[in-house]
């Protein structure tokens, strides 16, 4: 393999318009090619793999993808379905026939009794392309209305960082805080713990990850912070 010119070190911060590479590299995420040069299109961290140049964005918005688990808020109840805000430029639709198994009758069925404006739901995207708004489903286990817990919002591109390599980060947070955490690919995170104190710990950890996502050795620092916080006594032990 011939050595192709690159202009940054791995995991260095780049901004739009930065020249990343020259030659036969494949222009990956958040990059674009002009002639034989590849430039960045977003602020992010650069990653070179064998033949590809990627930029992991530090801030972006959520663009729906089929199969993604998302957390959304009902903003409108229509005649035959709901409009859901999924923290994206596009509003998502949830059909009434998806929720009501037997034939749906608009005259008899009251949709607000199922989901009302302001309700939060966990859903999955089943259809989306650039000409149509995304379509959701709640017809799987674990999906549906959220009845308790806290929801926090982070930049969607940092969700993989919260999960960590093979789930290392999220497992540390779950273990140390004792909370059940559900990550929506759209940047919304649901935290359910035994007490508000447990939830506070998890929120703190996630906020720290969001702030310092572009630094290395973060998993260890988060684990250390959680342990220190627990020892400081404000946290009720698991025996309660």
């Amino acid at each position, binding site marked *: 393999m011939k050595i192709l010119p690159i202009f940054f070190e791995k995991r260095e911060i780049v*901004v*739009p318009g930065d020249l990343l590479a020259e030659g036969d590299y494949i222009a990956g995420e958040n990059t674009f090619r002009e002639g034989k040069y590849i430039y960045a299109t977003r*602020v992010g961290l650069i990653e070179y793999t064998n033949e590809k140049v990627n930029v992991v964005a530090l801030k972006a918005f959520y663009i729906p993808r089929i199969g993604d688990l998302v957390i959304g808020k009902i903003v409108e109840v229509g005649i035959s379905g709901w409009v859901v805000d999924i923290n994206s430029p596009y*509003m998502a639709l949830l059909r009434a026939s998806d929720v009501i198994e037997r034939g749906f009758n608009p005259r008899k069925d009251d949709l607000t009794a199922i989901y009302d404006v302001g309700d939060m739901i966990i859903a999955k995207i089943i259809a989306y392309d650039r000409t149509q708004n995304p379509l959701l489903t709640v017809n799987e286990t674990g999906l549906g209305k959220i009845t308790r817990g806290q929801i926090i919002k982070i930049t969607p591109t940092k969700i993989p960082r919260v999960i960590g390599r093979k789930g290392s980060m999220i497992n540390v947070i779950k273990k140390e805080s004792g909370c059940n955490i559900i990550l929506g690919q759209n940047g919304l995170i649901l935290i359910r713990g035994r007490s508000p104190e447990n939830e506070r710990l998890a929120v703190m950890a996630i906020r720290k990850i969001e*702030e310092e996502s572009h630094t290395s050795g973060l998993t260890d620092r988060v684990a250390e912070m959680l342990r220190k916080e627990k020892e400081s006594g404000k946290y009720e032990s698991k025996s309660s």
Partner: protein
Amino acid sequence: MSQKVPEKLIDEKGLRLDGRKPDELRPVKIEVGVLSNADGSAYIEQGKTKILAAVYGPKEVHPRHLALPDRAVLRCRYHMAPFSVEQRKSPAPSRREMELSKVIREALEPSIFVEYYPRTAIDIFIEVLQADGGTRCAGITVASLALADAGIPMRDLVCACAAGKVDGTIVLDLTDIEDKKGEADLPTAMMPNSKSITLLQMDGMLTPGEFEKALNLAVEGCKKIYSLQKEALKAKYVAIKEAVEE
């Protein structure tokens, strides 16, 4: 405070009223991500000119009929605060502000991948807090940073700078008084990577030779602003990285 109009805008040593050389920029200070409610924001101080920019979007278009099926619509508002000039300015949008909103939008649009997000809108708000010449250029410079801060994919940052002619000399980055009393003003905005100019206006009279000299000077000024823009965009993240990694 009323501006005294001096007889000469350039003294015997060839220095300007504020002591700058003809090809020198005013001191520039840029900060990115200053507002927490907007999706992206930036602030610039260029000499006495102070401008704040905020970006929202992409988001659903309201009213709906403005949406385009194949790309995002870009909407821009350039506005001067009532206290930005010596004599209180009416906060209602003036003819000049509407025109500037349009030229700024057209200067920024080529840098954005609008075709990636059909049926959406991107809103840009440029608020001039204090005006001392060069507000359209500084406005483009900050708005471009606010767009990058909002995570909107861009081909390049757009940087802008004016050149002009004062007392027979071609100068860079005019102040308000130099603009008003001088002979010509040439605001320029560009994307340095592709060497494409996205805004070029001229006010006053220049010979073809002077125009070429002024344009080259403005391009040089743009490139200096460009490196300051990149530095400012990285500064926020570099500071955190240094703090935690030691």
